């Protein structure tokens, strides 16, 4: 399985989140991002979610104004990738309370923290939504506690 990368971008082609699980130079990352955003945006709404791109398979899905886009290897399962994308959206939804694009723009570090709790090195580490959210909440609590401590001191 092990994703190569995951990208979130808006309908206008603005990148909202990127996570690379393979080491690439910034130049390559930018090139790939540009190419993929163009390809995916050019596809019509009724088209299927898969496309073959270079030697990878791209699985993407649109939620409201955001495109979630993952790259997997040739033998990987497209349908489970879609499920992973969906699971991530559900997690965002639970965390932010009916998530919208703005939530992800303004709290982009939170979106990353949730993703990191869910996927590690491109592989789903936790299949239970409850466990992921619990871990995030506790880590957040730790953070808040510290900030509070700063102010109290």
């Amino acid at each position, binding site marked *: *399985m092990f994703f190569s990368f995951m990208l979130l971008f808006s309908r206008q082609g603005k990148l909202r989140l990127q996570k690379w*699980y393979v080491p690439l130079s910034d130049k390559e990352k930018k090139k790939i991002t540009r190419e993929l955003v163009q390809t995916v945006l050019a596809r019509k709404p009724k088209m*299927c979610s898969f496309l073959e791109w270079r030697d990878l398979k791209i699985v993407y899905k649109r939620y409201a104004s955001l495109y979630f886009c993952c790259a997997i290897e040739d033998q990987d399962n497209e349908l489970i990738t879609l499920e992973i994308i969906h699971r991530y959206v559900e997690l965002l939804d639970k965390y932010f309370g009916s998530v919208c694009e703005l939530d992800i723009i303004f709290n982009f570090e939170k979106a990353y923290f949730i993703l990191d709790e869910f996927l*590690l090195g491109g592989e789903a580490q936790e299949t239970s939504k409850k466990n992921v959210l619990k871990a995030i909440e506790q880590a957040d609590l730790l953070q808040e506690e*510290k900030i509070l401590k*700063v102010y109290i001191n």
Partner: protein
Amino acid sequence: MALKIVKGSIDRMFDKNLQDLVRGIRNHKEDEAKYISTCIDEIKQELKQDNIAVKANAVCKLTYLQMLGYDVSWAAFNIVEVMSSSKFTYKRIGYLAASQCFHESTDVIMLTTNQIRKDLSSPNQYDTGVALTGLSCFVTPDLARDLANDIMTLMSHTKPYIRKKAVLIMYKVFLKYPESLRPAFPRLKEKLEDPDPGVQSAAVNVICELARRNPKNYLSLAPLFFKLMTSSTNNWVLIKIIKLFGALTPLEPRLGKKLIEPLTNLIHSTSAMSLLYECVNTVIAGQYWFSVGSKELCVQKLRILIEDSDQNLKYLGLLAMSKILKTHPKSVQSHKDLILQCLDDKDESIRLRALDLLYGMVSKKNLMEIVKKLMLHVDKAEGTTYRDELLTKIIDICSQSNYQYITNFEWYISILVELTRLEGTRHGHLIASQMLDVAIRVKAIRVFAVAQMATLLDNAHLLTGNMQRNGICEVLYAAAWICGEFSEHLENPMQTLEAMLRPKVATLPGHIQAVYVQNAAKLFATILKSQEGNTDSTAAQDTSQLMIDRLPLFVQSANLEVQERASCILQLVKYIQKLQQKDVEVAEEVNALFAGELNPVAPKAQKKVPVPEGLDLDAWINEPPSESESEDEQPKAIFAKEEPKHSRPRHTEVDEKELARRREARKQEQANNPFYIKASPSSQKVYQDAPGVEHIPVVQIDLSVPLKVPGLPMSDQYVKLEEERRQKERAEKKKKEKKKRKEKRSGRGKKHDSGPESEEDITPAHQVDIVTEEMPESNCASVRFYLSRPLADSEKLPVRSHRAAEAAKSPAEDGETENATSLEPKKKSSKEKREKKKDKDRDRKVMVKCWIHHWDCAFFVFIFFCLHFLTGNDAYHLLCSCKSDFKGRLNGRWETMSDTVYDIQGNLQDGSQVVVSVIFENKCDSFLKSMEFNVLDSLNSKLQRPEGSGPHDGLTVPFQLPPGVSNEARFVFTVQSIVMPQKLKGTLTFIVKNEDSSTHEKLDFKLHFTCTSYLITTPCYSDAFAKLLESGDLKGSSVRLEGVNMPFHHLLARICFHHHFSIVERIDSCASMYSRSIQGHHVCLLVKTSGQTVSIDAKCDEPTLLGNVLDEIKQTFSQC
């Protein structure tokens, strides 16, 4: 202290935080870059402060800017600073920034090792967690090496939260530092049975990934995984395990048998599509077809996927279907309806998948229907990419495996013609090459094809809206060539000629114009022929005048090829016109320019012809022209002065009777050839005799479809016609069967019903010349295949006629020898001469085309040997006769003056005749003429001389040799006894003519008649072979060959090739072979090999002959 911190926090409140930055960027849409550069300046200031909170805030903003594409590598050290903060809040931001911005070449990474180690062992699990997450993104080989042990310890951490992260990150560590795999593996294996399902699934993930890279190390885990597979209910884990088994099964086939049951259970029971898809894919990839019903189950489930309204499932269903198609086309073919439906899908990617599938699904029965459907899509297709894809698919589908599925080529031609109406397609050349291929290979279609191509040429303006850019005008190339080459089939050649010489043609691309010009000349020749018979000679002169009027346009062409051909042909026509005015009949001679039939050649044919010893293909034939010469001098002036170059159009006349005989022989041979698709005589008849109303082509008025050109065929009508043709065939068949049944009914009670039409029942309306690619030299099995039939009477080699006598009759030859000056005008006028020589012997169609280009002083002689043959059988004979070892290379002065090679072949129909073909090559700088070939007859062998000449007279060689030219002459010898090899002495006398002198020269040579040359390759059935051996008439002898170091099939091929044997049967390292002498002696060989020793046991009814043949075989192998 506290105050300072509070102060810092208050300061921070006045700083821009991330939200402010994002808002600011959104508010400065017009000058975003400028705004961000001020922000970056601010961030730089913030990073200089001591307050870690301020720094963390700055780093957080940088992470955001990095995503927008700004370079933040300059802040790498600050990121490390924030990472090392003791506070989780900042550490978290630091690690996030690091995981987003660091990569392998970031040099500060090496500073982080100790910090990360500290965090990994932190008592706070969330500290450890962020460190692991961060590490997973930027782990380098150094970090992996230094931290592998720490991470390994974490795999046994008390908290499952840490364990699962540690297990997953181990995979990244293994990739960067493979040495860690061995020590870590036992612990990883333990984790497969971890009480926490998350950790367990992480371990499954990692092992599954590892196993995909190197499956054989993980075979031992199969039982463990099998247990997991049957017990787990987590679909994510199941998918992984199934994938893992997919990787293991190829190494351990027994696994497949064990797996198929749980897999089919899962396929039946699961509701999760991802799991179902994984199972089906694994069954397909693992080829678990031994299990009854597994294939049906897969196909049935895939059908459900394809029928689903979800585009994703449809796509994946088709994808998996195409994998089954590769191995089991039959089971997919039954779902043709569904696949065709998918062609109507809105989604282009689904349509493309369906197209891929169609390729493998066509049969003779449904080809027309499928292509018809595709043609509808071509009309509807909006984007050119998809339309072009459709076009190539249509052609791929139709042309696959030598047009195997096409039953009616008129239909195919009309499809191709319909495709030419596509505007702006890139695939004009593809259509063109198909037209050419079909027209050349399917002889029966030529009349139809020519008519269609003539219409195309006539309506060329419709195709070529935008000449240069439009790829479709490539089809005019094919159209012009077909009309020219097969011009005898043209209904109205005059009209076509006119169409080919229109001024608008000059706007076509150069290479197409060149073909136009060349083929206009062929057409002209045909027209002359038809007009010359008439009493009114003006018509013929008008035609010449048309050529003379129109050709100058092409003479002015900027394209060199067009210009050259046009000016050459123009001069030729002018000369013809002169002759016409003197009432000289020229048609026959003009036609001779283009005589000879072009036939298909296997792509690899030329490669199979061995290059004769001593021939260097890369060497210059003449000295290459010097650069300066060609620039200084005027080409025209040089041309006028230069010595006329001789090129001898040699063609042999064949009378009608001979042609008929050959045609009959070919038919007979085709009937015996399994590679020939037999023509059904009824098919043509049906087409002609079916004047039903529905067959009248009605021009449809449909504005959405590109305009149809009247007269062009509608492919649709063929679908109907074909249907009727088949019905009629079926009816006839039924009739026959009924008869049969009637006869049989009396004998037996119940007989099978004829049932639905099967694939084999459909006979094609036309036959294709199928040129097989492989020739027997490299593949003994195929030798056997072609030759394991007894020789039919019609297949016997015809008597070779005496070349010398025949060639002398040729009119051009006469002219050549008569008087050089009388030919002067003709020679001057022809810039380019084309010579076609056709060997008219039944099974050797060696065609030699010579173009002689005059360019300044140098002559480049391009000789294209186009060897072609209809069947493998022919190919074999050809190989035999083009023997690579031209044994009789004659030494001494021959090297300097001329070079001769010869080949000796027996004549099957006359047991006492042997034909020797000698190639004379003039290697010196002088002209050779008056050659006389003489051989001192022995008692046994005599040179056949024309009647009335004495026993010691020489034979005149019927040609002269200009410098550097070679030619072939054949001499017939009469041989009494063939059991002994013999050598004949001979002399060749000739006159060497220089500019100032001429001398008489003489050369002595020897002709070596080996016993092998009396053998004729004759196929033999194994049962006939057995009978022959049993008869006891044969006497045996044997020979052993030592140190033969070549594969057995090469050895056999060598015997076949050099000694004219054919293989009767081959079992492992043992083979039986057969050959026959021209006097009917049977020669049987049993060849056995073990190691480097080859033993040959031989039997023959003539022991002396056998002994000599064996000696010769021995010699062949001692040379290699």
